[in-house]
């Protein structure tokens, strides 16, 4: 067993897939950042709001006012370095840090695909994706003593496949619940509202279509990594990848994610495919072809570092495999309490919305009044806050501090909130008698959430 693992870890493969992956990843990230910037979202989401929802333990991560643009610029610069493969290791570290920092600045903006990018870029720190078809390789070739590599450890390519596989399979497992499979929720709500899409618009109101999409979606997520792995089914599987993600792109506002997934799936293709791409590019940019066929294997200059990398990647995947199951440690319905919901590849699973009205009570004077949320939050923040308990608590604490700062004493904060989930009638969400000003946030179960009145079976 150990022998097999060792042999596996020492196996090397051609580096072309990593190079293609690196370049396309960099290009997509650059496009993504430019898109974000050009929509005015940096200003709108990170600079304009006076208040930001933070992640537990990362309260110190804040936007830098107008210098936030600089942060985005640094991140964009690192993507260019990644594309051309210039000082790759440094570039990917900068990208990982800056991108993750951006995502930590405001929880309102949390998206699974941003989390995916963060995790992928972390993994890529340990992968020699910049050593082939890159400026780094070109510069190395100018030194007499060293030759750029043509082969990399096989596990570095496989680890990207594994991460993609985890994303898909966990997204599929999350769909194995009664709302998704038996009630075709939330697609039954979402699809009919897309009646104005050309060609298929009329179909989207049909109930059988809702079920077909639900079941197909779950099956797709669960099986697609395996179809991509198997050489014979690969072309078919890749067509499915394109159809699936393009469809989601047409139906839902999910930004760059479909393109990221489509391009990422190319990693499953054979070396021959990637080499064709590389050779075409190399010709276009006049990259010396002999550097693509050096027959040089990858050898780490520092053996301890190489070993540490493998250990870190192993730990990384262990965490990835376990983290989505943490919800089992909490009582109550996951979709309702959202305790353990994030960072688990639960993608487009629920139609959930809420309404939260906060009551402030001056504990000394007894004076009470309600808060107009628009005084403090952006529409997007208010929307996200209204159905997620950790947002509600953080906002309640902000209100407490705000009104105590205004001279009110021993401020108590109560919330009257209603949440509707997957077509059910809205019900009271947070205990209206709980003084949120007194409750501290933690990873412990939030017993001030009123339990879900229905039952959703499954994972």
């Amino acid at each position: 067993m150990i022998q097999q693992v060792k042999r596996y870890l020492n196996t090397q493969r051609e580096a072309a897939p990593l190079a293609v992956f690196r370049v396309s990843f960099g290009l997509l990230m650059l496009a993504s950042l430019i898109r974000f910037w050009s929509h005015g979202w940096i200003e709108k989401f990170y600079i304009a709001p006076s208040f930001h929802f933070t992640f537990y333990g990362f309260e110190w991560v804040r936007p830098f006012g107008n210098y936030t643009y600089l942060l985005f610029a640094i991140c964009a610069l690192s993507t260019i370095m990644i594309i051309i493969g210039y000082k790759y290791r440094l570039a990917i570290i900068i990208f990982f840090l800056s991108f993750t920092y951006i995502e930590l600045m405001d929880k309102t903006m949390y998206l699974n695909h941003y989390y995916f990018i963060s995790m992928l870029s972390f993994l890529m720190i340990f992968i020699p994706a910049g050593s082939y078809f890159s400026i780094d390789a070109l510069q190395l070739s100018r030194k007499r003593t060293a030759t750029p590599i043509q082969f990399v450890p096989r596990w570095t390519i496989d680890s990207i496949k594994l991460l993609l596989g985890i994303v898909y399979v966990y997204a599929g497992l999350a769909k194995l619940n009664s709302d998704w499979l038996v009630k075709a929720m939330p697609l039954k709500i979402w699809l009919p509202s897309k009646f104005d899409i050309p060609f298929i618009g009329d179909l989207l109101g049909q109930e059988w279509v809702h079920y077909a999409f639900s079941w197909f979606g779950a099956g797709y997520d669960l099986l697609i990594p395996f179809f991509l792995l198997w050489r014979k089914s690969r072309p078919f599987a890749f067509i499915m990848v394109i159809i699936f993600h393009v469809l989601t792109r047409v139906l839902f506002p999910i930004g760059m994610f479909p393109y990221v997934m489509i391009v990422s799936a190319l990693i499953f293709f054979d070396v021959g495919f990637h080499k064709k791409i590389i050779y075409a590019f190399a010709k276009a940019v006049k990259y010396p072809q002999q550097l693509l066929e050096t027959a040089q294997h990858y050898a780490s200059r520092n053996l301890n570092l190489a070993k540490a990398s493998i250990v870190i990647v192993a730990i990384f995947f262990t965490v990835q495999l376990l983290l989505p199951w943490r919800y089992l440690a909490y009582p109550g319905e996951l979709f309702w309490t959202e305790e353990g919901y994030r960072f688990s590849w639960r993608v487009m699973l629920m139609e959930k919305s809420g309404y939260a009205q906060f009551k402030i009570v001056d504990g000394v004077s007894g004076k009470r009044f309600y808060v107009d949320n628009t005084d403090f939050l952006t529409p997007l923040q208010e929307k996200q806050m209204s159905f997620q308990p950790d947002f509600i608590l953080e906002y309640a604490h902000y209100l407490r501090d705000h009104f105590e700062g205004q001279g009110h004493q021993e401020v108590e904060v109560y919330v009257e909130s209603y949440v509707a989930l997957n077509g059910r009638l809205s019900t009271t969400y947070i205990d209206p008698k709980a003084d949120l000003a007194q409750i501290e946030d933690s990873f412990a179960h939030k017993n001030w959430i009123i339990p879900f009145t229905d039952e959703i079976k499954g994972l």
Partner: protein
Amino acid sequence: MKKIFGIIAIALFFYACGSDDTTLTTDDSGTVNTGNFDRSAMLTNWADNIIVPGYIDFNAKVNTLESATAAFTADASDLTAVRAAWLDAYTTWQRVSMFEIGPAETVNLRLNVNIYPANVTTIESNIDNGSYDFGLSSNRSAKGFPAIDYLLYGLGADETAILAVYNGTEGAAYKQYLNDVVADMKQLTASVLSEWQGSYRAAFIENDGASATASTDRFVNDYIFYYEKFLRAGKMGIPGGVFSGNVEVGNLEALYAGNLSKELFLVGLDATQDFFNGKAYNTNAQGESLSSYLDELNAIKDGVDLIEIINSQFDVARASVSALGSFESELSQNPPSTFLESYNEVQRLIPLLKVDMVSAMSISIDFADADGD
């Protein structure tokens, strides 16, 4: 094989790229959706049977107010007729106030005719100066119904005292101001009505898609915004001190005339419920509406009868507010418990509209232009 595959991939990719951030519009035959609610029929009902007739009526009432004002300023001996015309127009306003979309939104009709309380200082200084530009936003609280309220009820302790102002040395300036305020309302109202009777109606109905900028999505947002901010908060919540902890009687609607704000509120509440049910203006005929839309969706999703819940909450809120004395007398209680209880019934509709209704329709509230996943 490979070539075809590549072509398909590229074509799909560009199709998806092409749809980026653009509004997809329905093709002309899109109104015959099978298994889908016909939004265009609903928009037509809104425009032809509710909104336009409402504006026609309101415009007529404003015209009547104008002639009554002209008669009063010609012979300032009796306030009865002009006051009645003002109240009639003000009451009708409550039925059209929520239609702040398109032409009304362009001219900011609501902000121009019903910002209250009126700013008496600005009104008096305008009258003193004899020159004012009603196009300035700083003058919004010095015109419209609240300003007329002040001019017809607030200039003196009683009718005799008020008439004395109009017949006094400054009388001409006050008369002029009153006429100008009414003329401003008339001009705004006429422009909104003529837009609706002109090209806007067709534009409104044609925009029958499902994007955030489609008529249905935008109007549902406007409708809920009206209910929450202007009906609930403006007419009850703010005067009742819900947001400040202190009763603010000075923020009641029709402050100087007094004892009217409850009636004006109830007309507004009726208007929002009638709109929900698609009831044609001033009749009992019903057409496609939010309620029939929910009905259609419920038929598909076999959900709870949300329509009944919403309508009965409207009824509960109406009964509760109707049972109150005038808002002035209720707010003189300390604390105004019965008033606040009624407010709570009015408040209870908000989660039903803002969470349950829109989530069933998959309409986003305060649409934020951002990605989801």
